[in-house]
């Protein structure tokens, strides 16, 4: 009697919620184990920001003018850099195929993976940016908006970039092609992200910029998962 009861308790639970939680937990764990992969985009971000004064000029006034743009472009490039490994490891060891075979809708499972990517790439970049802003003489009053715009923006960048990553994961030299595919699609986020920071400095239309960033994120949340899922199926079958 007791033996049977114990067996009944260990029956596996199913359902979408369980699948999502499991995917989230798994990806988080895997990424936390590969600490260097998480650090790479952040170190890249800092390095690129270091290069700009060296390449342009140490003049604080000049740097202050270009700082919002430089910070945003560097963060964007760091995100791009981290996209290649979004699906690659799972593709290579066959886990991606298992994901495709799962009864849960792929679009939603994929969202869990992208969420982890943002939590461990975009969010840290957003939090780190103000520190680098100091080195670029970013004027006061914009640091909060810098982080906020980057947090909102990198979420969109993760979603849009994941489409490109899904399309190129099966290709031998997909890295450069990924940049070509994804950068044109990044332009609106970049424009409104830097626009928000500059609006905070000039004191006009800040709400409009943030609202548009939010709208872009909403659009990406609604449409990107389906594109990512379709692209993954193509890459696996190709």
């Amino acid at each position, binding site marked *: 009697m007791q033996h049977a009861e114990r067996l009944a308790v260990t029956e596996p639970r199913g359902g979408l919620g369980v699948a999502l939680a499991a995917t989230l937990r798994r990806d988080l764990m895997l990424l936390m184990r590969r600490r260097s992969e998480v650090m790479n985009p952040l170190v890249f971000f800092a390095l690129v920001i270091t290069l700009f004064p060296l390449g342009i000029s140490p003049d604080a006034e000049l740097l202050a003018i270009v700082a919002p743009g430089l910070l945003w472009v560097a963060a964007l490039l760091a995100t791009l850099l981290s996209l290649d490994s979004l699906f690659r490891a799972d593709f290579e060891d066959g886990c991606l195929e298992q994901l495709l075979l799962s009864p849960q809708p792929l679009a939603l499972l994929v969202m869990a993976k992208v969420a982890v990517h943002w939590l461990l790439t975009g969010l840290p970049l957003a939090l780190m940016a103000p520190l680098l802003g100091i080195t670029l003489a970013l004027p006061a009053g914009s640091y909060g908006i810098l982080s906020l715009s980057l947090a909102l923006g990198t979420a969109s960048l993760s979603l849009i970039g994941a489409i490109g990553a899904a399309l190129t994961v099966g290709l031998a030299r997909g890295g450069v092609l990924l940049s070509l*595919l994804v950068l044109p699609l990044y332009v*609106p986020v970049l424009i409104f992200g830097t626009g928000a920071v*500059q609006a905070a400095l000039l004191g006009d239309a800040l709400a409009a910029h943030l609202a548009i960033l939010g709208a872009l994120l909403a659009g990406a949340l609604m449409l990107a998962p389906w594109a990512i899922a379709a692209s993954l199926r193509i890459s696996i079958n190709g």
Partner: protein
Amino acid sequence: MWAFINKLRSPKWFYAISARLQPWFWAAATLLIVVGTVWGLAFAPADYQQGNSFRIIYVHVPAAFLAQSIFVSMAVAAVVFMVWKIKIADMAAAVMAPLGAAMTFIALFSGAVWGVPTWGTWWMWDARLTSMLILLFLYFGVIALRGAFASRDSGSRAASVLAMVGVINIPIIKYSVEWWHTLHQPATFTVTGRVAMPMDMWAPLLLMVLGFYSFFIALTLMRTRNEILRRESRKRWVRDLAGGEH
């Protein structure tokens, strides 16, 4: 309607019907472009402010229209291919991309060159040129992605997804680039100017636009037929056809 769509599933039918349609579009393209060119270059009055450099409009604007229209056509073809599995649609999409890129380049080059006498500079980050440049990269991306896959079908489907993603983004990109431009340069008039043109200035422009569209259709028909020959080369009707050709 459905009968037509089912006919479209047959490359052989399309090959035959496009042979009949082609000459009309070539004729229309030639006529419209020649008349438009002569009218625009030699007979239309010079612009009051820009002088004769204004005549670049007669290639710049048609090319710009086509650059965007072709991307949209390509995306529509991609949808038709992915949803209804009609091979012809994918063949058409494949051949449209290079022409679209060429049109974008023409728009960029003519726009940039126009900037020299007008603005004194070889390149201007104005809204239209910047959007065109991004569009050119989108075209390159679709072309490169299609060719990167070992399996033709995978390449077709990947390029279709990218075309669909791209077409949704194009209005967003245009809008954001325009916003960006007005933020940084308040009062400019664009390269073409929003001044109302007298009829003997816009009539040749209309002819050129229609001529370019006819050219696009004619060339797409021609190159899709080539693509049919290439992909259906194993079929009996294609082999018979080749036997009868020069």
